[in-house]
């Protein structure tokens, strides 16, 4: 499981985490991805990076489905705190409250946060 907690731009963590998720999936691992805190903004629709001169990689999240990464979780509290819903996101996700997410995390063999 890969845990994304940071905004998509400003640091490179989001992009490099997406890269490693796709590689892990290519290695036939049972990969799941979590977005929480500012990490939920990584999935926001209609991103426009022209003003900051950075590559808009939000479309790449659509490749997760091609790599059979289907377990994509977003923390409900993080969405609520930012006025977002699942409809605002670029890919279909499972929205889970923190308590449920904690249980899913506890079941993982490896959790890598970014």
């Amino acid at each position, binding site marked *: 499981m890969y845990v994304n907690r940071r905004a998509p731009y400003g640091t490179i963590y989001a992009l*490099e985490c997406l890269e490693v998720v796709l*590689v892990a999936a290519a290695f036939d691992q049972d990969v799941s991805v979590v977005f929480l805190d500012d990490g939920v903004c990584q999935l926001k629709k209609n991103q426009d990076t022209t003003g900051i001169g950075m590559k808009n990689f939000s479309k790449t999240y659509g490749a997760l489905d091609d790599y059979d990464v289907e377990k994509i979780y977003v923390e409900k509290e993080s969405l609520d705190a930012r006025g977002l819903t699942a409809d605002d996101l670029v890919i279909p996700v499972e929205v889970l409250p923190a308590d449920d997410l904690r249980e899913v995390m506890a079941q993982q063999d490896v959790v*890598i*946060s*970014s």
Partner: protein
Amino acid sequence: MKFGILVNEGPFTHQASDSAYRFTAAALAKGHEIYRVFFYNDGVYNGNKLLEPQSDDRNLVTLWSTLGKEHGIDLVVCVAAALRRGIEDEILQEGFRISGLGQMVEAGIQADRLVVFGD
């Protein structure tokens, strides 16, 4: 226990590499095995031999290198993250090697615990 170590920050700005180094040394001292140390994100800077900290400060690049040589640890720098930051074989500290993200995935599979050190 067999540990994999993931280092996601470079030396100095963050404590992650110091903590990872101390954890690794302590685990070895207790008789544990280190399957691999993988450097990702700015962690790839830990393999840059051009770093020259002041002489009265620690040098994590040589500390990792020495620890790796003493215990035969596999110190792997991610190729994609490294090239993005100008880390190539010519400036790679002895004892490190550059390889792909698959090595990180493998460490997660082979080790009993993969311990992540980041900010």
